[in-house]
């Protein structure tokens, strides 16, 4: 059991009142939770929290990715001591908002939550918002995923053109096989006349994959301002995590 006093503290009086209303409806019955959790975004609201890195249990996460309703849901899950089965059930029967709230809470490592089941759910659907909510903006995945899950998530982030900086802890997880896959993916993109995933540059700087380094060297000579800006961003990112 984890004590989380700061989490409630992130909500305003009126947001807490909305949470109290929903908690009263739920009354710690999973049947009622399956009905009323969905009303949290309407009762609590979707105010975006300010960017801030916090350490929650073992994980580091960026609160700037959370909305008031996500915080409220996490409070509800923690106070009800929900485990994996209950959270997976909420995901399976949830709407987009509910899945987003459940996906966000995964990084808190709640109770006995063994997250692979939820990672699997989030990976096997095409809704980009849910992929982002479950996998990005914390280092939970980098800490706990096995190599296969990790590689699949990074490649999906690349495929969706998401910001590598949001995959906290990526610098600790750069196996050769993943770098090879990224080199293949970059070659494929080039062959199709499309831009490579900008995250490729930071990974080239931090890893030692010869194909990625060749690509980086070539692109450093590019006169395209977008490529130059992406390489500059990648340099900053690589330096900040080195």
């Amino acid at each position, binding site marked *: *059991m*984890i*004590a*989380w006093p*700061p*989490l409630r503290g992130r909500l305003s009086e009126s947001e807490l009142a909305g949470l109290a209303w929903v908690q009263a409806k739920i009354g710690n019955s999973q049947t009622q939770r*399956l*009905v*009323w959790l*969905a*009303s949290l*975004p*309407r009762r609590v609201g979707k105010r*975006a929290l300010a*960017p*801030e*890195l*916090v*350490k*929650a*249990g073992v994980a*580091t996460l*960026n609160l*700037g*990715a959370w909305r008031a309703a996500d915080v409220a849901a996490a409070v509800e899950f923690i106070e009800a001591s929900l485990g994996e089965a209950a959270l997976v059930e909420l995901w399976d*029967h949830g*709407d*987009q*908002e*509910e*899945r987003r709230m459940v996906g966000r809470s995964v990084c808190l490592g709640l109770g006995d939550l063994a997250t692979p089941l939820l990672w699997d759910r989030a990976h096997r*659907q*095409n*809704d*980009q*918002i849910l992929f*982002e*909510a479950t996998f*990005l*903006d914390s280092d939970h995945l980098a800490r706990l995923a096995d190599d296969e899950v990790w590689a699949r998530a990074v490649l999906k982030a690349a495929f*969706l053109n*998401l*910001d590598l*900086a*949001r995959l906290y802890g990526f610098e600790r997880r750069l196996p050769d096989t993943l770098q090879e896959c990224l080199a293949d993916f970059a070659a494929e993109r080039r062959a199709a006349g499309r831009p490579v995933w900008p995250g490729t540059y930071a990974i080239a700087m931090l890893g030692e994959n010869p194909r990625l380094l060749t690509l980086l060297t070539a692109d450093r000579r590019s006169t395209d301002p977008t490529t130059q800006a992406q390489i500059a961003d990648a340099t*900053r*990112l690589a330096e*900040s*995590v080195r």
Partner: protein
Amino acid sequence: MKIFEPHAHMVSRVTDDYERMRDSGVRVVLEPAFWLGQPRTSVGSFVDYFDTLLGWERFRAAGFGIHHVCTLGLNPREANDDRVNAGVVELLPRYLEKNGVVGVGEIGLDDMTAKEERWFLAQLVLAKEHDLPALVHTPHRNKRQGFLRCLDIIRDSGIRMDRVLLDHGNEETVKITRETGVWQGFSIYPHTKMDPPRMVAILRQYGVERMIINSACDWGVSDPLSVRKTADLMAEAEFGVGDIDRLVWGNPVQFFSETGRGTEAEWSTPPASTLGATHAGNSFLRGQSVETWGKRA
């Protein structure tokens, strides 16, 4: 022109339709749960169908800059099917608080059987309990009788008349519904039933108050742009911009937002299909001091 398309079965439409709808001014599309052209044989099919309307279809629409909302319910055709009717209605409370659900529907009558009446009434009661409006499908044959019977059941249920949209109306039914306080829906089809010129004639006679038009596009011959085409015909017939806007935007927005499931401001702004935009400039938090939360007790 901003359009709220209040009746379109998008699961059976292609991406070209979404593109053309967006380009014609559609900002919000409402998908009522209905039958799929043939009977479903198990409640599980409804579970997956409802989940599709709440999840994938909503995401698909957002990719084209269109808000997707829905009404959920047991349609009158399958209300006659004992393999699914009771189970689906039992399932509904779990869905009616979901985000994106703005009403109960399509419910109503089709062949006007006793079973249809029973499940129609039960679902009007659910709408009342969850503080939602009801989207009511009316019979395509024997319209006059069908409307009168629907109105009886609506009165019996105790739901507020102004929380009910009686759909698929025509010249005949306007006379019945006009004084009852319900909202009147008209489905505009390309060849059969109500077409744009007929609709414009009705509007000329009765005005736009409590009137809502839709394309009811689905897997049959139908036109997802028929709301826009009717609006253009109204402009040619010298209706004012205010009246046109009220018919294709103001009225459906008012009807479906009144119970707090959406707002005009939210629906006027395009939806996000990725969180990336919200996080621009937000993800580059590196090397900062980190506040530690929580201790293992």
